[in-house]
């Protein structure tokens, strides 16, 4: 279509003093950015093909490569940024909706970074986690608030089904299809070794992974892909996905090209057919309808599995959560607007939803005010980046967090945000066999275990500093938090004081 207006965003810089023409970069770039010139024994590059995934940079044995911003610039304009102009060029060329992947990268406030933690001094001494026991194990699910007795006045065990995990972090939903078999296996094996749970996402479950059932959350989403009795009964808990932080209000679409072989079998749809998850569940238009699905799933699993309802953090999240807490669900998962995705329309990802910190604080307060906080456990997600974020989330009232982007990064993801292209050079967000095999689960799972082990140490360290020896005593303990650079309203919503108060 005539002239192309777009200039490459990145430049692949090769130091020819160091390049030994081993061709590893050329062989490993699925975008075919590198080219080997036989006659000159020299590698050259087409910058326009580079998505900045760092595969070649990481593999180059002589550190001859780096990727830089191309630096090409338009006349500076505070209103029309280069990115905005490029997006218009792109759409004027394609006529299509802009697609993106991973989480919202825009410059909105990150509330976790505006919250500081407390530490003990003089009174209430701090605890050394290396010398004294520290409890990070948590139990998730509904808590009965009444003691029931039988006719002989003996206490009846009325505890609903719960799950117990070794630390307040779980791997969030990522479907087999959106991520590769090897990525899935890495998550499942890591969850098993760590004593936490991973989540199947909405793509059903590959038969090879049923053996990790005790460490699995099976998801039921609007497309109902791969849902059957054995699937529901295979996991430790069932999650109903109502929404996703990266794309609240819209459904999902896994293109038919990715629905091949095992993926099609796990989803129970024909090979090559597009997997379209509708925006709403077509049988849920009210809390009462949701309650029906919650109880249908409980019925199907003999009331043995806790049910999680996952929603995106949107404007009236507190009211929705209040409804869910009365629907019979055992847990609510709230996914903030920075949550990742394998593909979402850019405008939705970048402009819809609210920060999870605010949603969490609001939901926790509302449920407590209404006296129904014990009906449910609250799980939050949407860019939990470090152990500090975990501790802050728990102090803001979360029982547990979900991580996904951080887990993918641990396995090699470099946040190039081109998952939707299906050619992940790290073998994560792809179904191309030659690319999938780049992630050896023996290595991937170990990296996940290492990351979580490191976070657990850090969580204990921070708790110890505050003089707290059990994660349960940190939960909702807002006195351990202070805001920095926040206004009155923000502090009020978060329910915390300003630093210095």
């Amino acid at each position, binding site marked *: 279509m005539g002239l192309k207006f777009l200039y490459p965003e990145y430049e692949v810089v090769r130091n020819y003093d160091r390049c*030994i023409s081993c061709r590893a970069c050329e062989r*490993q770039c699925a975008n075919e950015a590198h080219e080997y010139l036989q006659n000159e024994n020299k590698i050259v590059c087409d910058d326009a093909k580079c998505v900045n995934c760092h595969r070649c940079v990481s*593999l180059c044995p002589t550190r001859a490569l780096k990727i830089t911003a191309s630096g090409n610039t338009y006349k500076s304009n505070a209103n029309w940024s280069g990115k905005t102009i490029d997006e218009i060029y792109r759409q004027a060329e394609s006529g299509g909706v802009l697609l993106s992947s991973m989480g919202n990268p825009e410059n909105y406030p990150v509330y976790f970074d505006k919250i500081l933690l407390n530490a003990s001094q003089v009174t209430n001494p701090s605890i050394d986690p290396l010398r004294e026991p520290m409890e990070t194990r948590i139990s998730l699910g509904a808590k009965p608030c009444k003691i029931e007795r039988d006719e002989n006045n003996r206490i009846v065990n009325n505890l609903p089904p719960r799950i117990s995990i070794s630390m307040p972090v779980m791997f969030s939903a990522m479907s087999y299809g959106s991520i590769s078999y090897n990525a899935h296996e890495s998550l499942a094996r890591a969850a098993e070794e760590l004593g936490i749970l991973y989540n199947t996402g909405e793509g059903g479950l590959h038969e090879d992974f049923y053996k990790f059932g005790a460490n699995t959350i099976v998801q039921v989403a609007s497309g109902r892909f791969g849902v059957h009795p054995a699937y529901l009964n295979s996991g430790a808990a069932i999650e109903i996905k109502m929404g996703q932080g990266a794309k609240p209000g819209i459904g999902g679409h896994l293109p038919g090209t990715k629905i091949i072989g095992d993926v099609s079998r796990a989803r129970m749809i024909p090979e090559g057919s597009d997997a379209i998850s509708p925006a709403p569940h077509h049988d849920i238009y009210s809390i009462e309808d949701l309650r029906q699905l919650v109880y249908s799933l409980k019925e199907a699993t003999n009331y043995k599995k806790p049910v999680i309802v996952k929603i995106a953090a949107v404007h009236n999240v507190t009211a929705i959560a209040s409804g869910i807490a009365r629907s019979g669900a055992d847990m609510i998962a709230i996914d903030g607007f920075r949550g990742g995705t394998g593909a979402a329309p850019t405008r939705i990802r970048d402009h819809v939803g609210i920060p999870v910190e605010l949603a969490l604080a609001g939901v926790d307060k509302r449920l407590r005010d209404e006296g129904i906080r014990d009906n449910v456990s609250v799980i939050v997600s949407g860019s939990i980046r470090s152990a500090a974020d975990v501790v802050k989330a728990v102090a803001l009232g979360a029982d547990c967090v979900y991580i996904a982007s951080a887990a993918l990064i641990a396995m090699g993801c470099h946040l190039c945000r081109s998952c939707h292209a299906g050619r992940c050079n790290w073998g994560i967000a792809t179904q191309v066999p030659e690319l999938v*095999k*780049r992630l*050896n689960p023996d290595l991937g799972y170990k990296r996940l275990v290492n990351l979580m082990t490191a976070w657990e140490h850090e969580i204990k360290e921070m708790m110890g500093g505050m003089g707290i020896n059990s994660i349960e005593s940190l939960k909702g303990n807002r006195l351990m938090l202070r805001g920095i650079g926040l206004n009155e309203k923000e502090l009020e919503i978060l329910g915390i004081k300003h630093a210095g108060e």
Partner: protein
Amino acid sequence: MKRVYVNEKWCLGCHLCEYYCAFAGFLERGENDMARALKTSKIKPRINIEEKDGVSFAVSCRHCREPLCVKGCITGALSTFDGVITINGDKCVGCYTCILCCPYGAISPSETGAVQKCELCVKTIGGTPACVKGCPNNAIVFEERG
């Protein structure tokens, strides 16, 4: 004894093992910058990637229990040390009998006139062989498998 084993399922065909192998020879001579070492010459690794139709794997000396190369060698240049099949460059006359004997194609000529082969890096870096260390995907491993 620990040997280099191949997990071809995970081999990416990146050929990095060949370069790390070639570089190990330079380390022995005190050159520790890979770019300087390998910039000018074409590499002659002792491990080689075989690839066809999307399948690839690394081939190097198996350190056979009954090494045909050692049996075939006319000067006694090849011998077994603690299970490692080793070449004594001073004794080798370059007749290439061993190259013809080895069923794996694991021995090759070198520029010194004597043949070269994998010696599990015992003479170069000690410990884990350089190819195994450099493999990004555990497609070759250094293990005890009896």
